């Protein structure tokens, strides 16, 4: 167990370092710098801007400053020639630097404002996906080949195939404009979460439904289920105690990718529903050449997804003791 944790952490550090390094050098290799535009700035202004963002430093110094953990600017450690007010800085200490476009904000501040929104949306979507996907999967496994099963499977296939923005469009037309039940855009109350949450979770609900159905069918065919039935256990106990746990294993292992997918999908959904989350900031930053912000979000989401996958692997061993982590 300890070896597993150690190895995972090591790989994580390596991955994160690779992501940071590659994106840093890509970002700095962009010709002209982030402030070049059609309207040329006064040279003094440009020099000032570059000095503020340390673009006048040699590249290796910029890189070390960005990576951390030592702060290399004038407030850094005294033995580096700074004033010693602020010793630490950079990504390793969790500071993602100033934003190039929103000049009064650091990337951390922007993320702190927007991440709770994205996480709320993501959790609603994931919860919805697991509840609906799981229950429809169980329902359709009870009578495989039946009418309910066929209908649900058709829905599930459609849900997997359709892009979430198409689903979002349909939902907006139906619930927003035809029935006028729910707000179609914006942020503030719980009702603003419903439509985007459904649209975001739909493909994952569909996939989870399929996984649950297959898992249930496989689990129901096991010998111990027959024994449980033979000794006269009521059906609901057979299902809840003897099959569900085994059937849900694939679903649990899918939760990692699903969470990653939901985070990604929220890029589009946040844009459609005008939700001020991290996803829409990320897309804007990519379009606006705000490289520090897009890099910061990339690093953040890599960490999040990696962490989620890690948690999923741990949960997996709790559900199925036969799986040993050393092999994973």
């Amino acid at each position, binding site marked *: 167990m300890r070896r597993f944790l150690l190895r995972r952490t090591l790989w994580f550090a390596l991955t994160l370092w690779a992501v940071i390094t590659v994106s840093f050098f890509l970002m700095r290799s962009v010709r002209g710098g982030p402030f070049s535009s059609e309207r040329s700035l006064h040279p003094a202004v440009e020099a000032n801007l570059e000095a503020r963002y340390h673009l006048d430093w040699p590249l290796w110094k910029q890189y070390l400053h960005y990576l951390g953990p030592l702060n290399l600017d004038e407030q850094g450690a005294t033995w580096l020639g700074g004033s010693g007010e602020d010793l630490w800085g950079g990504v390793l200490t969790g500071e993602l630097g100033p934003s190039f476009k929103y000049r009064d904000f650091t990337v951390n501040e922007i993320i702190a404002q927007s991440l709770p929104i994205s996480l709320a949306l993501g959790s609603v979507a994931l919860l919805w996906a697991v509840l609906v996907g799981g229950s429809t999967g169980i329902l359709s496994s009870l009578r495989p080949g039946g009418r309910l099963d066929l209908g649900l499977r058709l829905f599930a296939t459609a849900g997997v195939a359709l892009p979430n923005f198409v689903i979002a469009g349909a939902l907006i037309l139906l619930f927003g*404009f035809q029935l006028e039940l729910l707000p179609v855009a914006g942020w503030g109350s719980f009702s603003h979460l419903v439509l985007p949450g459904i649209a975001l979770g739909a493909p994952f609900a569909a996939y989870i439904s399929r996984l649950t159905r297959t898992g249930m069918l496989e689990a129901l065919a096991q010998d111990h289920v027959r024994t449980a039935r033979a000794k006269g256990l009521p059906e609901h106990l057979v299902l809840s105690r003897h099959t569900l746990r085994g059937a849900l294993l694939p679903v649990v292992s899918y939760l990692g990718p699903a969470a990653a997918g939901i985070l990604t999908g929220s890029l589009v959904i946040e844009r459609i529903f005008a939700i001020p989350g991290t996803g829409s900031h990320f897309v804007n930053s990519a379009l606006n050449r705000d490289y520090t912000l*897009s890099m910061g979000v990339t690093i953040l989401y890599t960490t999040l997804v990696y962490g989620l996958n890690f948690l999923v692997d741990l949960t997996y061993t709790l559900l199925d003791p036969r799986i040993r982590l050393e092999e994973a």
Partner: protein
Amino acid sequence: MRPSWDFGLGPGRLEALWNESAEVRGESPGQLAWKHVKASRAMRACLLLLALVGLTSLFAPLLPLPSPMALALETEPRPPRLFGSGQAWSAADYWELNPLDEKLLALRAKLFGEWQTPAWMGTDAKGRDMLARIVWGSRTSILVALAATLCSLLVGVSYGATAGYFGGRVDNWMMRVVDVLYSIPFIFLVIFLISVLNEYRSELSRLGVGPMTVFYVVIGLVYWLTMARVVRGQVLALRESEFIQAARAQGASFARILGVHLIPNTLSVVIVYLTLTVPSVMLFEAFLSFLGLGVAPPKVSWGLLAAESIEAINPIHTFWWLVVWPAAAMGSTLLALNVLGDGLRDALDPRHGKSNR
């Protein structure tokens, strides 16, 4: 070569066995796949739909559709109408065509003259025919999907086959890398990469690399992971089998064993994952175009049409034909590809059902 000794089986018995074995025919993955497609009505329907989509997109310039590019600035989109004459068209309504498309367009002028269909699916806000835009948009979407899938195929198969062939420590490391890459949210990196590469448009196009090529390669490089895993599993199972040992004993090189003996034997699984990669790449293209990072106007793709359709949704008056048709085209194609892929996977992939990757 028939043995002369009858192995003590008695008269006629060897003859019978020999004839029986001569009648046993192996089935190539292609034949197996075809058999499964033929057996299921849903899969036949899907294949038919895909063939239709493929043919119309390939021969789009030949069809008597209005130009998907020429603007006719109007105040608002016009609803679909079945009858009425479309205006005359001219070759000046089309631009940036490749030589083959120009030939097709000339052929169309001979076949249909100046006639073109009325706006069966309505027109968009800039007066362009929706049906034409959907058909021409399918060309971009399909091209991106196929090219990117090909990229992922090349990388995934060679990576997976190498890992599987060497086995042991090499395999362990190579697959650990895949595991790590699996847990990175690639789309963020891809978007970041595309936004950086956009800065180099002029340099890249001087090198002969268009923005679309960048796009395929970047997508392709993301989608090879599953393919690598699947191929590696197959190769790992195959590499100890007798025919590989025989090839090795005869001194066949690594490249020959891999290319001639191992990879062809993984094809059935590769086909399955190809049919599943194509829709996910299409979805990804749509996703990027939707965000404004993929296909740029005047080119049109299904993702771009979907993006326009979302913009067209508003509380005052929604032009339903802008929303419904692109969604239907994309949805039905993706659905068909998924159904086909799933069906083939159930039929061809021996490992499926146990692990749900």
